Protein backbone atom coordinates (compact mmCIF):
# COMPACT_ATOMS: atom_id res chain seq x y z
CA UNK A 1 0.00 0.00 0.00
CA UNK A 2 1.32 3.44 -0.81
CA UNK A 3 2.32 5.68 2.04
CA UNK A 4 -0.53 8.23 1.67
CA UNK A 5 -3.13 5.46 1.72
CA UNK A 6 -1.50 3.76 4.70
CA UNK A 7 -1.37 7.04 6.61
CA UNK A 8 -4.96 7.75 5.56
CA UNK A 9 -6.10 4.43 7.06
CA UNK A 10 -4.17 5.10 10.28
CA UNK A 11 -5.46 8.67 10.62
CA UNK A 12 -9.03 7.60 9.89
CA UNK A 13 -8.79 4.96 12.61
CA UNK A 14 -7.30 7.57 14.93
CA UNK A 15 -10.15 9.97 14.17
CA UNK A 16 -12.81 7.36 14.93
CA UNK A 17 -10.94 6.28 18.08
CA UNK A 18 -10.55 9.85 19.31
CA UNK A 19 -14.28 10.50 18.99
CA UNK A 20 -15.06 7.19 20.66
CA UNK A 21 -12.76 8.02 23.58
CA UNK A 22 -14.39 11.44 23.86
CA UNK A 23 -17.78 9.69 24.26
CA UNK A 24 -16.46 7.33 26.94
CA UNK A 25 -14.39 9.71 29.04
CA UNK A 26 -15.70 12.33 31.42
CA UNK A 27 -16.69 12.93 35.03
CA UNK A 28 -19.40 10.29 34.52
CA UNK A 29 -17.50 7.49 32.72
CA UNK A 30 -19.63 5.43 30.37
CA UNK A 31 -18.36 1.92 29.55
CA UNK A 32 -17.36 1.38 25.92
CA UNK A 33 -20.06 -1.30 25.48
CA UNK A 34 -22.77 1.08 26.60
CA UNK A 35 -21.49 3.75 24.21
CA UNK A 36 -21.56 1.29 21.29
CA UNK A 37 -25.09 0.19 22.23
CA UNK A 38 -26.25 3.78 22.45
CA UNK A 39 -24.69 4.79 19.16
CA UNK A 40 -26.20 1.83 17.34
CA UNK A 41 -29.57 1.70 19.15
CA UNK A 42 -30.34 5.00 20.90
CA UNK A 43 -32.42 4.41 24.04
CA UNK A 44 -33.77 7.51 25.83
CA UNK A 45 -32.30 8.05 29.27
CA UNK A 46 -29.55 9.85 31.16
CA UNK A 47 -26.77 8.01 29.35
CA UNK A 48 -28.37 8.82 26.02
CA UNK A 49 -28.57 12.52 26.95
CA UNK A 50 -24.96 12.66 28.08
CA UNK A 51 -23.76 11.01 24.89
CA UNK A 52 -25.97 12.77 22.37
CA UNK A 53 -26.48 16.19 23.93
CA UNK A 54 -23.18 16.77 25.68
CA UNK A 55 -20.29 14.64 24.53
CA UNK A 56 -21.04 13.95 20.87
CA UNK A 57 -21.61 17.62 19.92
CA UNK A 58 -18.47 18.63 21.76
CA UNK A 59 -16.38 15.82 20.27
CA UNK A 60 -17.60 16.66 16.78
CA UNK A 61 -17.00 20.37 17.39
CA UNK A 62 -13.44 19.57 18.44
CA UNK A 63 -12.94 17.41 15.37
CA UNK A 64 -14.37 20.05 13.03
CA UNK A 65 -12.29 22.78 14.67
CA UNK A 66 -9.05 20.78 14.44
CA UNK A 67 -9.74 19.76 10.86
CA UNK A 68 -10.58 23.31 9.81
CA UNK A 69 -7.46 24.75 11.42
CA UNK A 70 -5.22 22.13 9.80
CA UNK A 71 -6.89 22.77 6.44
CA UNK A 72 -6.49 26.53 6.74
CA UNK A 73 -2.87 26.16 7.86
CA UNK A 74 -1.97 23.91 4.93
CA UNK A 75 -3.74 26.23 2.47
CA UNK A 76 -1.99 29.34 3.77
CA UNK A 77 1.40 27.60 3.77
CA UNK A 78 0.83 26.81 0.09
CA UNK A 79 -0.54 30.26 -0.74
CA UNK A 80 2.14 32.27 1.04
CA UNK A 81 4.89 29.73 0.25
CA UNK A 82 5.92 30.13 3.83
CA UNK A 83 6.54 27.25 6.21
CA UNK A 84 5.64 29.42 9.21
CA UNK A 85 2.19 30.40 7.97
CA UNK A 86 -0.67 29.43 10.27
CA UNK A 87 -4.41 30.14 10.10
CA UNK A 88 -3.98 33.30 12.16
CA UNK A 89 -1.10 34.87 10.24
CA UNK A 90 -3.34 37.20 8.23
CA UNK A 91 -5.09 38.71 11.24
CA UNK A 92 -8.28 36.65 11.06
CA UNK A 93 -8.03 35.50 14.67
CA UNK A 94 -6.96 38.95 15.84
CA UNK A 95 -10.06 40.49 14.32
CA UNK A 96 -12.26 37.74 15.71
CA UNK A 97 -10.70 38.07 19.17
CA UNK A 98 -11.18 41.83 19.27
CA UNK A 99 -14.81 41.47 18.17
CA UNK A 100 -15.53 38.75 20.70
CA UNK A 101 -13.82 40.56 23.58
CA UNK A 102 -15.59 43.84 22.85
CA UNK A 103 -18.90 41.95 22.84
CA UNK A 104 -17.95 40.41 26.21
CA UNK A 105 -17.04 43.80 27.70
CA UNK A 106 -20.45 45.17 26.80
CA UNK A 107 -21.95 42.23 28.68
CA UNK A 108 -23.24 40.34 25.71
CA UNK A 109 -24.07 36.62 25.84
CA UNK A 110 -22.43 33.79 23.99
CA UNK A 111 -24.48 34.30 20.84
CA UNK A 112 -23.53 37.96 20.54
CA UNK A 113 -19.93 37.10 21.31
CA UNK A 114 -19.94 34.78 18.31
CA UNK A 115 -21.48 37.49 16.22
CA UNK A 116 -18.79 39.92 17.42
CA UNK A 117 -16.11 37.39 16.49
CA UNK A 118 -17.62 36.97 13.05
CA UNK A 119 -17.83 40.72 12.49
CA UNK A 120 -14.25 41.25 13.67
CA UNK A 121 -12.90 38.48 11.47
CA UNK A 122 -14.84 39.76 8.46
CA UNK A 123 -13.41 43.26 9.00
CA UNK A 124 -9.86 41.93 9.26
CA UNK A 125 -10.25 39.82 6.12
CA UNK A 126 -11.69 42.70 4.10
CA UNK A 127 -8.94 45.07 5.22
CA UNK A 128 -6.15 42.60 4.37
CA UNK A 129 -7.70 41.64 1.08
CA UNK A 130 -8.63 45.20 0.12
CA UNK A 131 -5.22 46.66 0.92
CA UNK A 132 -3.17 43.98 -0.78
CA UNK A 133 -5.45 43.97 -3.79
CA UNK A 134 -5.85 47.71 -4.17
CA UNK A 135 -2.68 48.48 -6.10
CA UNK A 136 -3.80 46.20 -8.89
CA UNK A 137 -0.53 44.37 -8.60
CA UNK A 138 -1.53 41.26 -6.69
CA UNK A 139 1.50 40.16 -4.78
CA UNK A 140 1.72 37.41 -2.19
CA UNK A 141 4.49 39.22 -0.32
CA UNK A 142 2.27 42.27 0.06
CA UNK A 143 -0.59 40.07 1.27
CA UNK A 144 1.65 38.45 3.87
CA UNK A 145 3.06 41.74 5.14
CA UNK A 146 -0.35 43.43 5.28
CA UNK A 147 -1.74 40.50 7.23
CA UNK A 148 1.13 40.35 9.69
CA UNK A 149 1.06 44.12 10.28
CA UNK A 150 -2.70 44.10 10.85
CA UNK A 151 -2.39 41.09 13.17
CA UNK A 152 0.18 42.98 15.24
CA UNK A 153 -2.12 45.98 15.55
CA UNK A 154 -5.10 43.82 16.50
CA UNK A 155 -3.07 41.95 19.08
CA UNK A 156 -2.15 45.27 20.71
CA UNK A 157 -5.82 46.26 20.82
CA UNK A 158 -6.71 42.89 22.36
CA UNK A 159 -4.10 43.49 25.07
CA UNK A 160 -5.59 46.93 25.66
CA UNK A 161 -9.05 45.44 26.13
CA UNK A 162 -7.58 42.83 28.51
CA UNK A 163 -5.86 45.34 30.79
CA UNK A 164 -8.80 47.72 30.92
CA UNK A 165 -11.56 45.09 31.33
CA UNK A 166 -13.08 44.42 34.77
CA UNK A 167 -11.35 41.58 36.66
CA UNK A 168 -14.31 39.22 36.58
CA UNK A 169 -14.35 39.19 32.80
CA UNK A 170 -10.63 38.66 32.24
CA UNK A 171 -10.65 34.91 32.90
CA UNK A 172 -13.38 34.31 30.32
CA UNK A 173 -11.42 36.43 27.86
CA UNK A 174 -8.24 34.44 28.44
CA UNK A 175 -10.10 31.19 27.86
CA UNK A 176 -11.40 32.57 24.57
CA UNK A 177 -7.96 33.75 23.54
CA UNK A 178 -6.31 30.43 24.34
CA UNK A 179 -9.04 28.45 22.65
CA UNK A 180 -11.73 26.63 24.59
CA UNK A 181 -14.50 24.31 23.46
CA UNK A 182 -16.69 24.51 26.61
CA UNK A 183 -19.12 26.89 25.00
CA UNK A 184 -18.95 25.48 21.48
CA UNK A 185 -22.34 25.48 19.83
CA UNK A 186 -23.67 23.00 17.31
CA UNK A 187 -20.87 21.58 15.15
CA UNK A 188 -23.09 21.08 12.10
CA UNK A 189 -22.21 24.33 10.34
CA UNK A 190 -18.48 23.83 10.97
CA UNK A 191 -18.62 20.23 9.77
CA UNK A 192 -20.34 21.37 6.58
CA UNK A 193 -17.62 23.95 6.00
CA UNK A 194 -15.00 21.29 6.74
CA UNK A 195 -16.34 18.75 4.25
CA UNK A 196 -17.03 21.31 1.51
CA UNK A 197 -13.73 23.09 2.05
CA UNK A 198 -11.67 19.91 2.04
CA UNK A 199 -13.38 18.70 -1.14
CA UNK A 200 -12.85 22.02 -2.93
CA UNK A 201 -9.25 22.30 -1.75
CA UNK A 202 -8.40 18.72 -2.72
CA UNK A 203 -9.85 19.47 -6.15
CA UNK A 204 -7.46 22.38 -6.54
CA UNK A 205 -4.55 20.47 -5.04
CA UNK A 206 -2.47 20.17 -8.20
CA UNK A 207 -2.68 23.92 -8.54
CA UNK A 208 -1.38 24.30 -4.99
CA UNK A 209 1.60 22.11 -5.85
CA UNK A 210 2.23 24.28 -8.91
CA UNK A 211 2.13 27.45 -6.81
CA UNK A 212 5.23 26.22 -5.01
CA UNK A 213 7.15 26.66 -8.28
CA UNK A 214 6.55 30.40 -8.10
CA UNK A 215 3.91 32.51 -9.83
CA UNK A 216 5.75 32.89 -13.13
CA UNK A 217 6.52 29.22 -13.69
CA UNK A 218 3.00 28.28 -12.60
CA UNK A 219 1.57 30.74 -15.11
CA UNK A 220 3.83 29.37 -17.84
CA UNK A 221 2.27 25.96 -17.22
CA UNK A 222 -1.19 27.43 -17.69
CA UNK A 223 -2.32 27.75 -14.08
CA UNK A 224 -4.73 30.66 -13.49
CA UNK A 225 -2.56 31.86 -10.62
CA UNK A 226 -4.45 34.93 -9.45
CA UNK A 227 -7.95 33.40 -9.37
CA UNK A 228 -6.54 30.36 -7.58
CA UNK A 229 -4.76 32.50 -4.99
CA UNK A 230 -7.90 34.50 -4.30
CA UNK A 231 -9.95 31.30 -3.98
CA UNK A 232 -7.42 29.73 -1.64
CA UNK A 233 -7.30 32.88 0.50
CA UNK A 234 -11.10 32.92 0.72
CA UNK A 235 -11.27 29.23 1.56
CA UNK A 236 -8.62 29.53 4.26
CA UNK A 237 -10.38 32.59 5.71
CA UNK A 238 -13.78 30.85 5.85
CA UNK A 239 -12.23 27.74 7.44
CA UNK A 240 -10.45 29.85 10.06
CA UNK A 241 -13.55 31.87 10.89
CA UNK A 242 -15.63 28.70 11.25
CA UNK A 243 -13.02 27.25 13.62
CA UNK A 244 -12.59 30.43 15.64
CA UNK A 245 -16.33 30.80 16.14
CA UNK A 246 -16.47 27.34 17.70
CA UNK A 247 -13.51 27.52 20.00
CA UNK A 248 -11.67 30.85 19.93
CA UNK A 249 -8.07 30.86 18.78
CA UNK A 250 -6.71 27.38 19.36
CA UNK A 251 -3.02 27.51 18.54
CA UNK A 252 -0.48 24.98 17.29
CA UNK A 253 -2.84 22.73 15.27
CA UNK A 254 -2.94 24.83 12.13
CA UNK A 255 0.79 25.44 12.02
CA UNK A 256 2.08 22.05 13.01
CA UNK A 257 -0.32 19.40 11.69
CA UNK A 258 0.55 20.00 8.00
CA UNK A 259 4.24 19.86 8.90
CA UNK A 260 3.71 16.64 10.83
CA UNK A 261 2.17 15.11 7.69
CA UNK A 262 5.12 16.38 5.62
CA UNK A 263 7.58 14.92 8.11
CA UNK A 264 5.80 11.60 7.69
CA UNK A 265 6.72 11.76 4.02
CA UNK A 266 3.61 13.14 2.29
CA UNK A 267 4.05 16.47 0.52
CA UNK A 268 1.71 16.47 -2.50
CA UNK A 269 -1.30 18.58 -1.56
CA UNK A 270 -3.87 16.12 -2.92
CA UNK A 271 -2.86 13.82 -0.04
CA UNK A 272 -1.55 16.39 2.39
CA UNK A 273 -4.86 18.26 2.68
CA UNK A 274 -7.17 15.34 3.56
CA UNK A 275 -4.51 13.76 5.79
CA UNK A 276 -4.01 17.04 7.64
CA UNK A 277 -7.76 17.37 8.17
CA UNK A 278 -8.00 13.88 9.65
CA UNK A 279 -4.93 14.30 11.84
CA UNK A 280 -5.90 17.80 12.99
CA UNK A 281 -9.42 16.65 13.84
CA UNK A 282 -8.28 13.56 15.73
CA UNK A 283 -5.59 15.51 17.56
CA UNK A 284 -7.87 18.29 18.76
CA UNK A 285 -10.60 15.82 19.80
CA UNK A 286 -8.06 13.96 21.91
CA UNK A 287 -6.62 17.16 23.34
CA UNK A 288 -10.11 18.39 24.27
CA UNK A 289 -10.93 15.12 26.01
CA UNK A 290 -7.78 15.55 28.09
CA UNK A 291 -8.66 19.20 28.69
CA UNK A 292 -12.02 18.37 30.23
CA UNK A 293 -10.99 15.26 32.19
CA UNK A 294 -7.44 15.92 33.45
CA UNK A 295 -8.37 18.07 36.45
CA UNK A 296 -12.16 17.51 36.32
CA UNK A 297 -14.49 19.01 37.32
CA UNK A 298 -12.33 22.00 36.36
CA UNK A 299 -11.93 22.40 32.61
CA UNK A 300 -8.71 23.57 31.00
CA UNK A 301 -8.64 25.61 27.79
CA UNK A 302 -7.88 23.15 24.99
CA UNK A 303 -5.50 25.62 23.35
CA UNK A 304 -3.05 25.11 26.19
CA UNK A 305 -3.15 21.34 25.83
CA UNK A 306 -2.64 21.30 22.06
CA UNK A 307 0.82 22.71 22.61
CA UNK A 308 1.59 20.68 25.73
CA UNK A 309 0.72 17.43 23.93
CA UNK A 310 1.84 18.51 20.47
CA UNK A 311 5.26 19.96 21.18
CA UNK A 312 6.90 16.70 22.35
CA UNK A 313 5.33 14.80 19.43
CA UNK A 314 6.55 17.39 16.97
CA UNK A 315 10.06 17.48 18.46
CA UNK A 316 10.19 13.68 18.22
CA UNK A 317 9.16 13.82 14.55
CA UNK A 318 11.74 16.50 13.82
CA UNK A 319 14.52 14.61 15.60
CA UNK A 320 13.81 11.34 13.84
CA UNK A 321 16.05 10.25 11.00
CA UNK A 322 14.66 11.40 7.64
CA UNK A 323 12.30 8.89 6.08
CA UNK A 324 13.55 7.45 2.81
CA UNK A 325 10.26 7.04 1.03
Amino acid at each position, binding site marked *: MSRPLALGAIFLAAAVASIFIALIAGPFPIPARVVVDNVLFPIPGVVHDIIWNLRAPRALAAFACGGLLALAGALLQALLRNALADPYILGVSGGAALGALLALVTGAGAALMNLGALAGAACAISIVFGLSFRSGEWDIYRLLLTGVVLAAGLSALVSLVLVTAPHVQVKGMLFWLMGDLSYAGSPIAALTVLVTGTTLAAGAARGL*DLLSLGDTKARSLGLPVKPLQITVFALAAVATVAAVMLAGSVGFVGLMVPHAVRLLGVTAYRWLLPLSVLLGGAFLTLADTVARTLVAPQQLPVGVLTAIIGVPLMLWLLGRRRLSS
Partner: protein
Amino acid sequence: MTDAGVAARDGAPVIKCEALTLAVPGRVLARGVELEVRPGDIWAVLGANGSGKTTLVHTLAGLAPVSRGTVFVGGQSAGSRVARIGVLLQQEEATFWGSVLEYVLLGRFPRTAALFGWSIDDENASRAALAAVGLAGFEHRDYRSLSGGERQRTRIAQLLAQDPDCCLLDEPLQHLDLRHQVAVLKLIDALARGRAKAVIMVLHDVLWPARVCTHALLLHEDGTVECGPAHAMLTRERLERLYGCALREIAADGSVFFAPV
Protein backbone atom coordinates in the same frame (compact mmCIF):
# COMPACT_ATOMS: atom_id res chain seq x y z
CA MET B 1 26.93 18.14 -31.95
CA THR B 2 27.18 19.13 -35.56
CA ASP B 3 27.99 22.21 -37.55
CA ALA B 4 25.70 25.16 -37.25
CA GLY B 5 23.21 26.12 -39.87
CA VAL B 6 22.53 22.78 -41.52
CA ALA B 7 19.21 21.89 -39.93
CA ALA B 8 16.43 21.79 -42.45
CA ARG B 9 14.04 24.71 -42.11
CA ASP B 10 10.75 23.15 -42.90
CA GLY B 11 7.26 23.48 -41.55
CA ALA B 12 5.30 26.51 -40.46
CA PRO B 13 6.88 28.83 -37.91
CA VAL B 14 6.42 27.82 -34.29
CA ILE B 15 6.93 31.39 -33.17
CA LYS B 16 6.76 34.50 -35.27
CA CYS B 17 7.25 38.06 -34.05
CA GLU B 18 6.48 41.15 -36.04
CA ALA B 19 7.69 44.63 -35.07
CA LEU B 20 7.87 43.52 -31.46
CA THR B 21 8.95 46.05 -28.84
CA LEU B 22 10.60 44.68 -25.71
CA ALA B 23 9.99 46.84 -22.70
CA VAL B 24 10.10 46.67 -18.94
CA PRO B 25 8.14 49.23 -16.91
CA GLY B 26 9.68 52.62 -17.63
CA ARG B 27 12.19 51.51 -20.23
CA VAL B 28 12.20 50.26 -23.82
CA LEU B 29 14.88 47.63 -24.33
CA ALA B 30 14.58 46.85 -28.02
CA ARG B 31 12.41 47.86 -30.94
CA GLY B 32 11.36 46.14 -34.11
CA VAL B 33 12.19 42.56 -33.27
CA GLU B 34 11.36 40.39 -36.29
CA LEU B 35 11.76 36.73 -35.61
CA GLU B 36 10.66 33.53 -37.29
CA VAL B 37 11.43 30.32 -35.47
CA ARG B 38 10.75 27.05 -37.25
CA PRO B 39 10.78 23.42 -36.08
CA GLY B 40 14.36 22.20 -35.82
CA ASP B 41 15.85 25.66 -35.25
CA ILE B 42 18.14 26.28 -32.34
CA TRP B 43 18.36 29.99 -31.62
CA ALA B 44 20.89 31.64 -29.38
CA VAL B 45 19.83 34.89 -27.75
CA LEU B 46 22.90 36.92 -26.88
CA GLY B 47 23.32 40.29 -25.28
CA ALA B 48 24.90 42.17 -22.42
CA ASN B 49 23.39 42.20 -18.92
CA GLY B 50 20.09 44.02 -18.88
CA SER B 51 19.75 44.06 -22.66
CA GLY B 52 16.38 42.30 -22.62
CA LYS B 53 17.17 38.61 -23.09
CA THR B 54 14.94 37.49 -20.25
CA THR B 55 12.25 39.97 -21.27
CA LEU B 56 12.28 38.43 -24.74
CA VAL B 57 11.82 34.95 -23.29
CA HIS B 58 8.98 36.13 -21.05
CA THR B 59 7.29 38.00 -23.89
CA LEU B 60 7.47 35.02 -26.25
CA ALA B 61 6.10 32.78 -23.53
CA GLY B 62 3.16 35.08 -22.93
CA LEU B 63 4.33 35.82 -19.38
CA ALA B 64 4.93 39.51 -20.06
CA PRO B 65 2.40 41.69 -21.90
CA VAL B 66 3.11 42.61 -25.51
CA SER B 67 2.96 46.39 -25.61
CA ARG B 68 3.68 46.82 -29.33
CA GLY B 69 3.93 44.35 -32.18
CA THR B 70 2.64 40.82 -32.40
CA VAL B 71 3.73 37.40 -31.24
CA PHE B 72 2.23 34.52 -33.15
CA VAL B 73 2.43 31.01 -31.73
CA GLY B 74 1.99 28.05 -34.06
CA GLY B 75 3.14 24.50 -33.53
CA GLN B 76 2.04 21.14 -34.78
CA SER B 77 0.98 19.17 -31.73
CA ALA B 78 -2.42 19.18 -30.12
CA GLY B 79 -2.83 20.94 -26.84
CA SER B 80 -3.20 24.43 -25.57
CA ARG B 81 -0.75 27.23 -26.21
CA VAL B 82 0.75 26.76 -22.77
CA ALA B 83 1.32 23.08 -23.46
CA ARG B 84 3.12 23.87 -26.71
CA ILE B 85 5.51 26.45 -25.27
CA GLY B 86 7.79 25.37 -22.46
CA VAL B 87 9.84 27.80 -20.42
CA LEU B 88 12.92 27.23 -18.32
CA LEU B 89 13.15 30.30 -16.14
CA GLN B 90 16.41 31.81 -15.06
CA GLN B 91 15.26 32.05 -11.48
CA GLU B 92 12.70 30.26 -9.43
CA GLU B 93 11.35 32.15 -6.48
CA ALA B 94 10.14 29.21 -4.54
CA THR B 95 11.30 26.14 -2.69
CA PHE B 96 9.61 22.87 -3.36
CA TRP B 97 8.86 20.58 -0.42
CA GLY B 98 8.38 17.29 -2.27
CA SER B 99 10.38 14.66 -4.10
CA VAL B 100 12.23 15.03 -7.40
CA LEU B 101 9.60 12.93 -9.21
CA GLU B 102 6.74 15.05 -7.83
CA TYR B 103 8.63 18.12 -9.03
CA VAL B 104 9.07 16.82 -12.58
CA LEU B 105 5.44 15.66 -12.70
CA LEU B 106 4.29 19.28 -12.31
CA GLY B 107 5.53 19.84 -15.87
CA ARG B 108 2.73 17.54 -17.00
CA PHE B 109 0.06 19.94 -15.74
CA PRO B 110 -0.90 21.31 -19.20
CA ARG B 111 -0.85 17.82 -20.74
CA THR B 112 -2.28 15.47 -18.16
CA ALA B 113 -5.50 13.58 -18.78
CA ALA B 114 -6.00 12.82 -15.08
CA LEU B 115 -8.49 14.89 -13.11
CA PHE B 116 -6.92 14.19 -9.75
CA GLY B 117 -3.26 13.37 -9.33
CA TRP B 118 -1.28 12.06 -12.29
CA SER B 119 -1.77 9.29 -14.84
CA ILE B 120 0.61 6.44 -15.65
CA ASP B 121 1.54 8.32 -18.85
CA ASP B 122 2.52 11.35 -16.82
CA GLU B 123 4.65 9.24 -14.54
CA ASN B 124 6.34 7.43 -17.43
CA ALA B 125 7.07 10.72 -19.22
CA SER B 126 8.54 12.16 -16.02
CA ARG B 127 10.73 9.14 -15.31
CA ALA B 128 11.98 9.18 -18.92
CA ALA B 129 12.74 12.90 -18.64
CA LEU B 130 14.75 12.32 -15.48
CA ALA B 131 16.68 9.54 -17.19
CA ALA B 132 17.37 11.85 -20.15
CA VAL B 133 19.13 14.38 -17.89
CA GLY B 134 21.08 11.63 -16.13
CA LEU B 135 19.04 11.67 -12.94
CA ALA B 136 17.52 8.18 -13.09
CA GLY B 137 17.40 6.86 -9.56
CA PHE B 138 16.84 10.32 -8.09
CA GLU B 139 13.02 10.00 -8.25
CA HIS B 140 12.45 9.78 -4.52
CA ARG B 141 15.16 12.15 -3.40
CA ASP B 142 14.02 15.26 -1.59
CA TYR B 143 14.19 18.15 -4.09
CA ARG B 144 15.79 20.40 -1.49
CA SER B 145 18.64 17.95 -0.98
CA LEU B 146 19.85 18.38 -4.59
CA SER B 147 22.90 20.41 -5.53
CA GLY B 148 22.58 23.49 -7.73
CA GLY B 149 23.50 21.60 -10.88
CA GLU B 150 21.17 18.71 -10.05
CA ARG B 151 18.33 21.16 -9.50
CA GLN B 152 19.02 22.75 -12.87
CA ARG B 153 18.87 19.34 -14.54
CA THR B 154 15.66 18.52 -12.65
CA ARG B 155 14.14 21.73 -13.97
CA ILE B 156 15.20 20.76 -17.50
CA ALA B 157 13.60 17.35 -16.91
CA GLN B 158 10.37 19.10 -15.92
CA LEU B 159 10.43 20.91 -19.24
CA LEU B 160 11.09 17.65 -21.12
CA ALA B 161 8.15 16.03 -19.32
CA GLN B 162 5.94 18.87 -20.55
CA ASP B 163 7.02 17.98 -24.11
CA PRO B 164 6.50 21.40 -25.71
CA ASP B 165 6.99 22.18 -29.41
CA CYS B 166 9.06 25.19 -28.55
CA CYS B 167 11.50 25.36 -25.66
CA LEU B 168 12.40 28.78 -24.32
CA LEU B 169 15.48 28.32 -22.18
CA ASP B 170 16.80 31.16 -20.08
CA GLU B 171 20.40 30.27 -19.33
CA PRO B 172 20.01 26.50 -19.49
CA LEU B 173 23.68 25.92 -18.67
CA GLN B 174 23.82 27.83 -15.41
CA HIS B 175 25.17 25.85 -12.42
CA LEU B 176 26.26 23.01 -14.73
CA ASP B 177 29.77 21.61 -14.85
CA LEU B 178 31.42 21.21 -18.25
CA ARG B 179 30.40 17.58 -18.68
CA HIS B 180 26.77 18.36 -17.97
CA GLN B 181 26.86 21.43 -20.20
CA VAL B 182 27.88 19.16 -23.06
CA ALA B 183 25.23 16.60 -22.10
CA VAL B 184 22.45 19.22 -21.96
CA LEU B 185 23.50 20.72 -25.29
CA LYS B 186 23.49 17.25 -26.86
CA LEU B 187 20.00 16.77 -25.49
CA ILE B 188 18.89 20.10 -26.96
CA ASP B 189 20.48 19.19 -30.27
CA ALA B 190 18.63 15.87 -30.30
CA LEU B 191 15.34 17.61 -29.49
CA ALA B 192 15.74 19.95 -32.44
CA ARG B 193 17.14 17.51 -34.97
CA GLY B 194 15.48 14.29 -33.93
CA ARG B 195 12.10 15.56 -32.84
CA ALA B 196 11.79 18.83 -34.78
CA LYS B 197 11.40 20.94 -31.65
CA ALA B 198 12.24 24.60 -31.84
CA VAL B 199 14.67 25.87 -29.23
CA ILE B 200 15.41 29.44 -28.21
CA MET B 201 18.03 29.79 -25.55
CA VAL B 202 19.67 32.64 -23.74
CA LEU B 203 23.38 32.00 -23.46
CA HIS B 204 26.17 33.93 -21.83
CA ASP B 205 28.95 32.21 -23.55
CA VAL B 206 30.42 32.79 -26.99
CA LEU B 207 31.84 29.29 -27.27
CA TRP B 208 28.66 27.20 -27.48
CA PRO B 209 26.45 29.21 -29.87
CA ALA B 210 28.75 28.63 -32.83
CA ARG B 211 28.82 24.91 -32.14
CA VAL B 212 25.15 24.13 -31.49
CA CYS B 213 22.96 26.95 -32.69
CA THR B 214 21.52 27.33 -36.17
CA HIS B 215 20.56 30.96 -35.62
CA ALA B 216 21.41 33.81 -33.33
CA LEU B 217 19.63 36.92 -32.14
CA LEU B 218 21.78 39.74 -30.82
CA LEU B 219 20.28 42.33 -28.49
CA HIS B 220 22.53 45.38 -28.60
CA GLU B 221 22.65 47.88 -25.79
CA ASP B 222 21.44 50.71 -28.01
CA GLY B 223 18.17 48.85 -28.57
CA THR B 224 18.91 47.55 -32.06
CA VAL B 225 18.43 43.90 -32.83
CA GLU B 226 20.20 41.70 -35.32
CA CYS B 227 19.21 38.18 -36.15
CA GLY B 228 20.00 35.55 -38.73
CA PRO B 229 21.92 32.34 -39.35
CA ALA B 230 24.51 31.69 -36.69
CA HIS B 231 27.54 31.81 -38.96
CA ALA B 232 26.59 35.28 -40.18
CA MET B 233 25.84 36.62 -36.70
CA LEU B 234 28.71 35.16 -34.74
CA THR B 235 31.53 37.26 -36.11
CA ARG B 236 34.21 39.04 -34.15
CA GLU B 237 33.02 42.56 -35.09
CA ARG B 238 29.43 41.86 -34.07
CA LEU B 239 30.32 40.18 -30.80
CA GLU B 240 32.79 42.94 -29.88
CA ARG B 241 30.06 45.48 -30.44
CA LEU B 242 27.57 43.33 -28.52
CA TYR B 243 29.65 42.90 -25.39
CA GLY B 244 31.67 46.08 -25.66
CA CYS B 245 34.95 44.28 -25.15
CA ALA B 246 37.82 43.28 -27.40
CA LEU B 247 37.84 39.67 -28.55
CA ARG B 248 40.52 37.41 -29.96
CA GLU B 249 39.74 34.87 -32.66
CA ILE B 250 41.28 31.47 -32.15
CA ALA B 251 41.18 28.92 -34.94
CA ALA B 252 41.61 25.28 -34.03
CA ASP B 253 40.55 22.07 -35.73
CA GLY B 254 38.73 24.00 -38.41
CA SER B 255 36.52 25.88 -35.94
CA VAL B 256 36.77 29.45 -34.77
CA PHE B 257 36.54 30.37 -31.09
CA PHE B 258 36.34 33.75 -29.41
CA ALA B 259 38.06 34.68 -26.20
CA PRO B 260 38.49 38.04 -24.47
CA VAL B 261 41.81 39.73 -25.25
